């Protein structure tokens, strides 16, 4: 259990750092916040992996099939990416070191927590970024209706939540192509644009700044939303709103509620949106 306590402690520290970065002189430092969000995600995975210590099967080497053994509503979102995963995998050279790497992520203080969190995302390589990004865009455009109706988390869905979080988290921490599942829920409008390759060209300095400022404004609005969440410390994360980062912070609430932790999916990507 020590790893769970450790993971929780690291999560609290990470959140504190993100919150403090707002008030630092010089503006938000993108690099540091990105690293902190990666640590936060790793810690969360370890924390939540507790649910799987019993449920983990012999699935260490299995990467398809049982992982996607989830409720129908979730399946609507996942199968397209699962098939894409399979397709990518078949073209991919085997990367044995990636798989055990994912497993070891859950090892803390020599406690070996076997989990079946290894999935095909861990084998994705940068070369496939473009192709998978395009297919993701198609996925995104198909699934906005489902995104709104994402079921409220409940204890019985604990198994579901972990599966839900993992591929998205794995994707974010490893390669770009796989964070969409979660981002679907928030930015269905913007997802449709993500399929377009950004038009890149040499820019005059002034127009460069202007265009970036528009993107930056979107980012800073995420920040302010995030702040309202963090403003009420950990309890702010209790917000059960289905994944909008504009979740209202609740005044009361238990800290460290297991159920609440499942809702960490949406805002974890919001952190990345710094």
């Amino acid at each position, binding site marked *: 259990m020590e790893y769970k306590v450790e993971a929780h402690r690291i999560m609290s520290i990470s959140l504190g750092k993100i919150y403090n970065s707002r008030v630092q002189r010089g*503006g938000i430092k993108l690099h540091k916040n990105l690293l902190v969000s*990666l640590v936060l995600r790793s810690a969360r995975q370890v924390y939540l992996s507790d649910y799987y210590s019993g449920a983990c099967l012999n699935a260490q080497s299995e990467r398809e099939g049982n992982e996607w053994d989830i409720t129908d509503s979730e399946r609507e979102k996942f199968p397209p990416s699962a098939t894409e995963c399979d397709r990518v995998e078949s073209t991919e050279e085997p990367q044995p*070191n990636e798989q055990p790497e994912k497993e070891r992520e859950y090892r803390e203080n020599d406690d070996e927590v076997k989990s079946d969190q290894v999935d095909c995302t861990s084998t994705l390589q940068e070369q496939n970024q473009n192709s998978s990004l395009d297919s993701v865009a198609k996925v995104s455009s198909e699934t906005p209706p489902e995104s709104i109706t994402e079921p409220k988390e409940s204890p019985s869905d604990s198994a579901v939540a972990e599966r839900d979080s993992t591929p998205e988290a794995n994707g*974010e921490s490893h390669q770009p192509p796989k964070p969409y599942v979660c981002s679907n829920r928030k930015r269905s409008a913007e*997802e449709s644009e993500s399929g377009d390759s*950004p038009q890149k060209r040499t820019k005059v*300095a002034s127009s*460069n*700044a202007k265009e970036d400022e528009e993107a930056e404004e979107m980012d800073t609005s995420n920040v302010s939303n995030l702040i309202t969440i963090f403003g009420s410390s950990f309890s702010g994360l209790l917000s059960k709103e289905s994944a909008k980062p504009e979740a209202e912070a609740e005044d009361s609430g238990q800290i460290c509620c297991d159920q609440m932790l499942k809702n960490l999916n949406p805002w974890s990507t919001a952190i990345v949106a710094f």
Partner: protein
Amino acid sequence: MGEDSESPKINHSFLRDYVTEADVISTVEFNQTGDLLATGDKGGRVVIFQRETESKDESEELGESGEYNVYSTFQSHEPDFDYLKSLEIEEKINKIRWLPQQNAAHFLLSTNDKTIKLWKVSERDKRPEGYNLKDEEGRIKDISTVTSLRVPVLKPTDLMVEVRPRRIFANGHTYHVNSISVNSDGETYLSADDLRINMWHLDITDRSFNIVDIKPANMEDLTEVITAAEFHPQHCHLFVYSSSKGTLRLCDMRESALCDKHSKIFEEPEDPGNRSFFSEIISSVSDVKFSHSGRYLLTRDYLTVKVWDLNMEKGPVETYQVHEYLRSKLCSLYENDCIFDKFECVWNSTDSVIMTGAYNSFFRMFDRETGRGVTLESWRESSKPRAVLRTRRIYTGGRRRRGDVGVDSLDFTKKILHMAWHPAENIIAIAATNNLYIFQDRVNAENLKT
């Protein structure tokens, strides 16, 4: 601050320990000849030191024990404010780079988070005297008092060093600028922020070319940022940039206008046995430097320095452990933010020795030929002028010798992040918080404080 006299009645030590945040040195750089050394600090100031070339002692052989003395000080950047985003822009100087000298004046580029400035440093030791219409103080003379005309003459005067801003390259970056690098063509330079790299012409300030853009269409997909970038020392079309994921990308500007697609990517597969919560943080490359030969790359991540051969992409050719004993302490280093420290690394003039900083005022040097490393200390109390640097050891187990420092007694507030090596001789400049130490490879070492 000069040396305080030892007074038995009054203890001045607290004054010595007090460090103004603005005095913390944030960058150190020699110019191409090594005669000038520039330092930038958090307060936006640049201090230039010049090496004294006259040897006063006739018995000195060729090569002077030239001391570096303050040549010029100026305020490069001021605190700024971005009104649109309501963000303060720090005046801290992130990097200084000298331009190759072309005439009597010296030029350097200095940058803070957003703006790059080109400064001209010139000397004036003559001034014109004998104007017809102005008197000695510069006041306009009454015409009626002018009875004859004369030609003004130049008279020698005290040496004055003038520093003037010649170009201001503003509004090129949305994110924080972390690197600048002057191209070997002498006309262009690059500036890199977290997500983009721009190429500028030294004479054109209202326009820059974007040559690398890794900003994803959706910021939520962001997984890595650019941490450092540098032009190749000889090939004006090649540059390298490092990322927070520990990869290096070599780009060739001849391939396309936008170099998002790299020519070569250098990355080392992660060792799965060392995986932890903080693996991503410690694999982030904090500095990348080309060797003088242009054949090798030197990178620094949190625990190691690595030498890469440009011809081999699959991994570094040499890896040196800087402070492996910190690997078990990553969690506490994360808590006190030390894990985010960005150490620099440097080559010596012949590319045979590499150097980087560590904690507790220690810095490490590695001899590439033997593979051995030494730990040296730059700390006022133990370094007197002309004292010999002695090597230090961290006690990590086994036989403990006198003078060994235990890992738990390391002072993590005394970190050596910035340093520079003279381009031709074995002279190094080490920045330790607000102090600058200059060491020479001679029997007599020097100690210089700012």
